[in-house]
């Protein structure tokens, strides 16, 4: 299904500690035309981001070691990753989380469960919109 590393496909990083959701996101973004790299926590996501210079990172909020907000702040603080798009995903219904996400520097905040088509469309709009 994946044809990673051909150099033309934009790179996406996904970080979620739930393997099932990680795979779901990987399938969705691969189908949407991305070269996908998976991380199980924020630390891993940071390493992958520095290595692959992705167009977009999709981060879960609740992750061990480094959560989605901290990872977003770290990405924004690093000049090599500061310009990439960051999407925060959360299963929480607390309204304050949206503000936290935007304050941390995220470009988009989406709630779980998300519609697969909707997620892919919004990420495409975000990346293509510059």
């Amino acid at each position: 299904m994946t044809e990673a590393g051909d150099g033309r496909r934009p790179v996406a990083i996904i970080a979620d500690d739930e393997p099932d959701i990680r795979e779901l996101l990987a399938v969705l973004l691969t189908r949407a035309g991305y070269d996908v790299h998976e991380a199980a926590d924020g630390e891993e996501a940071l390493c992958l981001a520095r290595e692959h210079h992705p167009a977009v990172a999709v981060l879960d909020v609740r992750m061990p070691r480094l959560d989605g907000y901290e990872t977003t702040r770290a990405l924004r603080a690093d000049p090599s990753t500061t310009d990439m798009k960051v999407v925060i995903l959360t299963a929480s219904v607390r309204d304050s989380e949206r503000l936290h996400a935007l304050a941390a520097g995220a470009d988009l905040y989406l709630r779980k469960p998300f519609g697969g088509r909707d997620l892919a469309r919004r990420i495409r709009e975000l990346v293509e919109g510059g």
Partner: protein
Amino acid sequence: MGTHGPGPTPQHSTGARARIAFYLLSLGATATVASLAFGVRDSAGIAACAGAAYGLALLCLAGYGRLPERAFQAISAAATVVVTLGLYYGGPASTFYQQFYVWIALYAAYHFRPLAAAFQAVVIGVAYGIVLGFTDIGAAAPVAWFLTMGTLLVAGVLTVLLHGRVETQLHALRAQNELLRDTDRLKDDFLATVSHELRTPLTSIRGYLELLLDDDPQQLSEEQRRFLTVIERNSQRLLRQVDDLLVVAQIEAGALAIDASPVDLAHVVGEAVSRHAATAAERELELTAEPHTVAATVVGDSARLGQLLDALIENAMKFTPPGGTVSVRLRPLPGSVELEVVDSGPGIPADEQARLFERFYRARGVTAEAVPGTGIGLTIAKGIVNGHGGTIECISLEGIGSTFRIVLPTTYGT
């Protein structure tokens, strides 16, 4: 004493300033007359008595007003000096003021905390001791002298004892406060955890279902596709229940956020009606939004108002038998908008009407076609309406139908 009238806010209107001036003048006059009546004849004595009276007035202001404790201490120190000098120059006659002074000073200090009153008692006691050493007041007015010193002694001991009790109570209160804060935090954490634990598996279920249903149609048999659609519909229903319960939990925790912006209610109504059009047709109900010509804009949370309409329309459809009608009406009122959801159902018996908005209350008389609910739709509706500063009521006549009437202020929170 004439000091209660103006109270602690002498800084405002001219009326208040004039009143204070009047009180101060009357205070001086009263003090002068009183000192003459008590046999003070020399001008120094009269001045001292008036000074003592002003000292008392200041002390009252300081004690009853919401002054910071440091300011109170400064004023009370000045008042002690003034009253002590008054005692010294005024002689036995000024013991009249002295008695007042002791009580007011102790009360005012106690107003802050018992230890301040004990400290006050010691300061006054020392000041009087000095005056007694230099004058013959002790011999001239022994009863007053004895009363003053006795009062100080008893007050000092009592306040020190009370201080211990108050500190213990304060300690208990602080611990209780901390516990309440912990409980609030726990409630919030619990809500976040429950939300996460329920919605995460639903994300996988619905996500993979969507992948399967999106796949090449040839790979699935017609029957498999139908089964998957059933799973999809039920996972949607489960998600809706979870979200409803979480909204109720947020309402209960007082944490329902209202993301306020101008909302065109007519638009929200139109969308809600079209969301339920398919279900209405399925159950042979006529669901309509009555036409309106005037704009009905309120400041509110459009997503929450949509939820409100969902809850009301679903509720109405649940109790209206096939062939009936459910209509949504909007009417702008001065400063508010009235929203009505009217059904031609069997109506709600009077004994049930009072319990409608209770959590998990499920009314009898649900139609056979309706999917049974959890009884939280109207709780959610009420929570959202309250969150917008509005009111909700139910008018129902058995055999005729029910109307849920909501009045939302147009300018919430402004």
